[in-house]
C-alpha cells in the first residue's frame, strides 16, 4: 500500500516511516512542509496519506489545508491527520465533504502501534476514524439533549465507539459482547435518534457524526 507521510520533526517522521515500513506499507514520499505535501499528494495519489496538521512554512494548519485541497481535486483521497491536539472545528472541516476515508487522531495514539496501523488501514479502505477525544467532547456537548438522554449507558458506549469509526466486530471485541448484541444496540440507538439505519459501516459513522455535529 503506497503511503505519503508529512511531518516536520525529523525524529517523528523517521519513527512513522519505520513503523509503516515494519507493517509492510510502501512509503513513497515523506515531506516536511506544506507546499511539498501538496505536490506529493497530487503526483503520487497515494492509497493513504498520514499527515501532520501543523507544518512549515507557516506552522499553522498548513497540513490540514493541503489535505482538504487535495481532496477537492481528488475526491475521497484517504487522509489520516495527526496532531498534538484535536479541535472540533478541524474534525468538522475534514468530515464536511462526507466522502469518508478520513481519519483524525492525536499523535499520542501512534504509540499504540497496532491500533494506529489498524486506523491507517481502515482509512485507506474508506472508513472514517475519529479520535476518542473528539467524540468525548462531541458527546459532552450533547449531554443534556433529549434523545441522547434516553440512551442506556451501554448504548451510550456503543454510540461513542461507533462515532470513533469502529466496526460492529471491533465494538463487540472491545465490549466483550457478541456482534449480534452490538447490532441490537445500534438498531436501538438509530431508532431513538431517528436516524436511517445503514448496513454499510462508513455511512453509519458519517450519519452518527453528522447527528452529533448538528
Amino acid at each position, binding site marked *: 500500500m503506497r503511503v505519503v507521510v508529512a511531518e516536520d520533526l525529523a525524529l517523528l517522521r523517521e519513527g512513522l516511516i519505520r513503523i509503516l515500513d515494519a507493517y509492510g506499507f510502501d512509503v513513497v514520499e515523506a515531506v516536511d512542509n506544506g507546499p511539498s505535501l501538496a505536490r506529493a499528494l497530487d503526483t503520487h495519489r497515494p492509497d493513504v496519506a498520514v499527515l501532520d496538521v*501543523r507544518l512549515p512554512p507557516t506552522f499553522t494548519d498548513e497540513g490540514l489545508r493541503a489535505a482538504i485541497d487535495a481532496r477537492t481535486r481528488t475526491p475521497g483521497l484517504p487522509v489520516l491527520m495527526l496532531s498534538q491536539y484535536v*479541535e472540533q472545528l478541524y474534525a468538522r472541516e475534514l468530515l464536511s465533504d462526507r466522502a469518508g476515508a478520513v481519519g483524525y487522531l492525536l499523535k499520542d495514539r501512534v*504509540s499504540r502501534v497496532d491500533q494506529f496501523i489498524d486506523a491507517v488501514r481502515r482509512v485507506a479502505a474508506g472508513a472514517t476514524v475519529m479520535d476518542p477525544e473528539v467524540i468525548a467532547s462531541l458527546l459532552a456537548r450533547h449531554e443534556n439533549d433529549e434523545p441522547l438522554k434516553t440512551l442506556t449507558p451501554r448504548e451510550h458506549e456503543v454510540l461513542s465507539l461507533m462515532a470513533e469509526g469502529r466496526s460492529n466486530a471491533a465494538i463487540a471485541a472491545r465490549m466483550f459482547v457478541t456482534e449480534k448484541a452490538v447490532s441490537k444496540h445500534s438498531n436501538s440507538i438509530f431508532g431513538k435518534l431517528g436516524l436511517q439505519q445503514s448496513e454499510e459501516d462508513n455511512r453509519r459513522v458519517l450519519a452518527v457524526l453528522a447527528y452529533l455535529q448538528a
Partner: protein
Amino acid sequence: MTAADAPPDPPPDPRAALGLPPAPVRGLPPAPARGFRAGLVLRMELLGWSLVLLLASAAAFALLMLWGMAAGLVLMGAGLPVTLLATALVRRFADRHRGWAGRWGGEPVARPYLPIPAGNWLTRLRAILSDPATWRDCAWLAVDSVAGWFTAGGPFLVFAAGLFSLSYPLVLALTPPQVLRTPLGPQWPLHTTAASLVMVPLGLVCLALWYVSAIPLARLNAWVIRSLLAPTEQARLRARVAHLATSRAETVDTQAGELRRIERDLHDGAQARLASLGMSLGLAEQLLAQNPQAAARLLSEARESTSTALAELRDLVRGIHPPVLADRGLDGAIQALALAGPVPTTVTVRIPGRLPAAVESAAYFAVAEALANALKHADAHHITISVEHTPDSGGLLRIAVSDDGRGGASFGGGTGLRGIERRLGAFDGTVSVDSPVGGPTDVRMSLPCVWS
C-alpha cells in the same frame, strides 16, 4: 447621596478613567439637513431641553451660592459635611450637563475629577479643594447661571414670542378690550383685527429665527460645558499616567503569576513523568535479557506515561496560547471555543484579517473567560458571541458575549470578570456587564487595536 465620593451615575465614559480621549459617538451631532420634518422634531426636542436647561441655570446659581456658603463655613471651622454634600451635588449636576453636552455636542465629555482618597472628612475635603476640576466646576456654575439665560432662554423666548405673535389675531378676538392691546409698545396700540394681522409676519420671523438659531445655540452651550467641564489636557495626562502605572503593575503581577503556574505545572507534570519514563526505560533495558516479560510490562507502562505527559502538555499549551488561535486567528479560535461548549452558541466575527498577536490573545482569553462564566453560572440555553472591528468602530475591537441565563453576574461575584478587566486593562480595553437578576446577561468588552 451621603458624601462627595458617592459613585457617579452613570460615569460619562469608562474610557475617561483610563485617561483616554473619549470614543467618538456615532450618529451625532444632529445632521442639520435631513429634511424639514426631522429638523423640526430635532428643534422641538432642543426646545424642551432649553426649558430644562433654563431651570438648571437658575439651579446653577443656587448651587454656586450653596457651595460658596458651605466652603465659607469651613473656613470658620464648621460645615464640613455640608461642603462634601454640596460638592457631591455640584458634581452630579455637572455630570448631567456633561451627558447633555456629549449627546448634543458630538462627542462625550469625560469626567475630570481626581479620585477622592479614603480617609476622614478633612482629607477628603483637602483632596476636593486641591482638585482643579472643583474650581472649574465653580467657574462653570457662575458662567452658566448667566450664559444659560441666553443659550437656553433665548430660543425659548423667541419661540414663545413667535407663537404669541402668530396667534395674536385670535388672542385679540378672545380677550377683553383692555388687555394685550400693545404688543409692540404703548405707542402702537392695536385695536382692530385688521391691525392685529401686522403681528403675523412678525411671528413668522420669530419662528424662523428660532429655527435657524436653535442648533447653533445648543452647540454653543455644549461648547461652554465642554470647555469648562471636560478635563484639561494636563488632567487627562495625569489620569493616563496613573492608569498606566496601575495596569502595568497588574500586568507584571499577572504575568509573574502565570509563569509560576507554568513552571509548577511543568515541574510536577511533564518533567516528573519524563524522569520516571527514563527510569522505566533504563530498567527495561536491564531486564530485557533476563526477564523479557517484566521488560515488556515496563515498556507498556512507559508508553502510558508518555500519553499522560502529552495530555498534560496539551492542556498547558492551550492555557498559554491555544494552537487553534495561532492557526486560524481570532475568528477560528472563537468558533472552536463555541463548538467545544455544551450550550448552543452563535458566533459572528467581523474583523479584517488577522489582528496584532497580543490583541488576538487578550481578546481570545477574554471571550473564553466570559464564555466559561456563562457556561458555569448562567444556566443558559443559548449564547451569542459577536466580535467586530470595522472602520466605523473607531479602531476598537468590540466584543459582546450574551446569554439568556439567569443573570445576576457582577464584578464582585468572583466570576472572573475582574480577571477579564485586568487582562483587557493592560491594553486600555474596558469591560462592562449588564446582568439583571433573572437575566439576560450581556458582557461587553472593547479593546483598542492600536494602543499608546
